[in-house]
């Protein structure tokens, strides 16, 4: 039961984060989620000072205002052109975060808001705070996060086409009267709300991992937006389940391990993704080089085939000595040409086959 509630909390938080994160990553404002997740700390403590509540709808919305304020301040600062966008982000959120930390240290020592909790979360204790619902004792954070996920799903579902257009072509979206900047602020508001709801469970910085890393991983795997959203949610769910298992096994931070697992998925995808992975890129480059050098060899053979130097030039030795190819590369090129029946080997001599000669003549033909 405890296990289930912890994993469910993680899954709900990370799915909400990944859903919105997809659009943030595509828009190029991923670091804004980092800024938001830090500044809501100020919102949480301010709301607590006023209302003495840490959970419930009012604190969540109140604290989310701090996130929206961060976005507004950053935009305004960048638009004043006194500092650039990246510096604006880096100026606004540390200031708000520092103010929040100081307020906590001054006035809120006795409440359960603790600076370590803010950063790291305590997902292991979500089952302690429960409310009765339909005869069940349901952890409060599960209810909150479910509502947040539903709100996010509704937002993305209703505004799917506008969001898509505003993400990929804001100018066209504005021209069609779709108010991309209003959509942007709505997205940022929902991100703030999600950050506040998730912060109890996973903490400020690990929330950033769930916003950015699964969508970025999905982006390496597909070019379809709906598939990217589904993949991101699937990846973050897998990260929660496996992260929980490993955290229990090694007896380390649960939220930290869940976030680390998103990093593992990303590293694996970066290496092995079928189209865009580093390995696939390497193989593609190597193949392209082989094909290119194969054509170079055909041209070389054609140039020399009916001349006096044919015995010297049209050999494997000439490829390594005259074209400065390393021996293994020359072998690979010859092997490839032999396999494709472009040339034939006659003792030391390399001779063009009809197919090879046509291919070589095409290289010299005027287009």
């Amino acid at each position, binding site marked *: 039961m405890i296990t289930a509630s912890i994993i469910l909390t993680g899954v709900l938080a990370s799915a909400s984060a990944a859903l919105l994160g997809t659009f943030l990553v595509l828009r*190029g404002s991923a670091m804004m989620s980092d800024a938001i997740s830090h500044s809501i700390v100020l919102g949480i403590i301010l709301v607590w000072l006023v209302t003495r509540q840490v959970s419930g709808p009012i604190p969540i919305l109140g604290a989310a205002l701090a996130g929206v304020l961060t976005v507004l301040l950053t935009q305004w600062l960048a638009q004043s052109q006194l500092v650039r966008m990246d510096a604006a982000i880096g100026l606004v959120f540390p200031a708000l975060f520092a103010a929040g930390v100081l307020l906590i240290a001054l006035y809120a020592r006795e409440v359960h808001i603790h*600076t*370590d909790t803010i950063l790291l979360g305590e997902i292991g204790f979500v089952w302690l705070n429960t409310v009765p619902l339909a005869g069940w004792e349901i952890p409060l954070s599960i209810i909150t996060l479910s509502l947040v996920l539903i709100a996010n799903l509704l937002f993305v579902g209703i505004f799917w086409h506008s969001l898509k257009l505003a993400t990929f072509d804001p100018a066209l979206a504005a021209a069609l009267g779709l108010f991309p900047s209003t959509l942007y602020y709505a997205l940022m508001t929902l991100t703030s709300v999600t950050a506040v709801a998730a912060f109890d469970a996973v903490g400020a*910085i690990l929330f950033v991992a769930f916003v950015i890393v699964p969508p970025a991983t999905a982006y*390496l795997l597909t070019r379809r937006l709906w598939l990217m959203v589904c993949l991101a949610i699937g990846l973050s769910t897998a990260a929660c389940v496996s992260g929980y298992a490993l955290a229990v096994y090694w007896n380390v931070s649960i939220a930290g391990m869940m976030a680390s697992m998103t990093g593992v998925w990303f590293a694996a995808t970066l290496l092995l993704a079928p189209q865009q992975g580093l390995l696939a890129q390497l193989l593609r480059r190597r193949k392209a080089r082989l094909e290119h050098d194969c054509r170079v060899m055909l041209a070389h053979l054609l140039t020399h085939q009916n001349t006096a130097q044919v015995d010297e030039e049209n050999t494997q030795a000439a490829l390594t000595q005259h074209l400065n190819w390393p021996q293994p590369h020359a072998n690979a090129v010859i092997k490839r040409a032999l396999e494709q029946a472009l040339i034939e080997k006659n003792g030391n001599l390399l001779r063009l086959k009809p197919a090879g000669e046509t291919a070589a003549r095409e290289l010299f033909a005027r287009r």
Partner: protein
Amino acid sequence: MSFLQDLLGSQIVQLVVLGAALLGAMSGILGSFAVLRQQSLLGDTLSHAALPGVCIGYLIAGERQLSLLLPGALVTGTLAALSVMLITKRTRLKTDAALGIALSVFFAIGTVLLTLIQAQGSVGSAGLSSFLFGQAAAITKGDISLMIGTGTLLLGVVLLFWKEFKLVSFDPASAQVLGLPVLALEGALTLIVAIAVVLGLQLVGVILMVALLIAPAAAARQWTRSLSSMVMLAGLLGAVAGAGGALVSATGRGLATGPVVVLIITGIVLISLLIAPQRGILWQARARRRLTKRLPAVTVPHDAKRRKFPIRGVKRG
């Protein structure tokens, strides 16, 4: 006033204020290049990525020993910077996503290692979590000599390659054309920022380090148009904020140094943004008001009164 004298008379406070001022100056100077190259948030990523390095250094040393924690932080910070470069160069992902990925994943690994250390229950682990928010009060004489040594070295490097760094910061394309090793120079600047971050961790911690890098430079930028005076001013402002923050937090009440330093330097930035001559917001507003006052006198053509459609702001006779 006597309270301040008491405070400054204490040798520990003197040490802490000196250390904080040194760190502030150093990150101000070195951060200037990051701000000019639009790489402010790289400092954020580097400082978060230092956490796993600090933890690994702690696991190896078995205690809070600066000479092992800092190299660890430098190694993981450099790894993070390299992964950001790899991701932006080799995938469709944009810089901000790459920065966010490196930041959050390295930090997540750091928190996992942190709980591993806490589970071992060793005495010094409390000192380790001070790396999250910084603890200038824990600075020792050895730390200060380390800072002075490293700071002098870095400053020497910056002075030695001043012209090259300047060109790479403002116009990397012509640096490339001139045959400068741009990649190496950019790498060196990143490494310098990484070292500044690592040294600054003591003062403000991993979360707020980005402010100490950016804010002095952003404030200094408003007052001057030349690189050398910007760098010097940034160093001065950083030192003022560092020393001021250390003093305030030494007055007690459990105020961590990091947040106080950040609030002071943010205040300096705000003032600079408002009143800096030529650029400041108030200055611009005044210039605009004057211009609008002068505008009708200059631009009203003599047939304005006879026009069918009035020109805005001009009274019809």
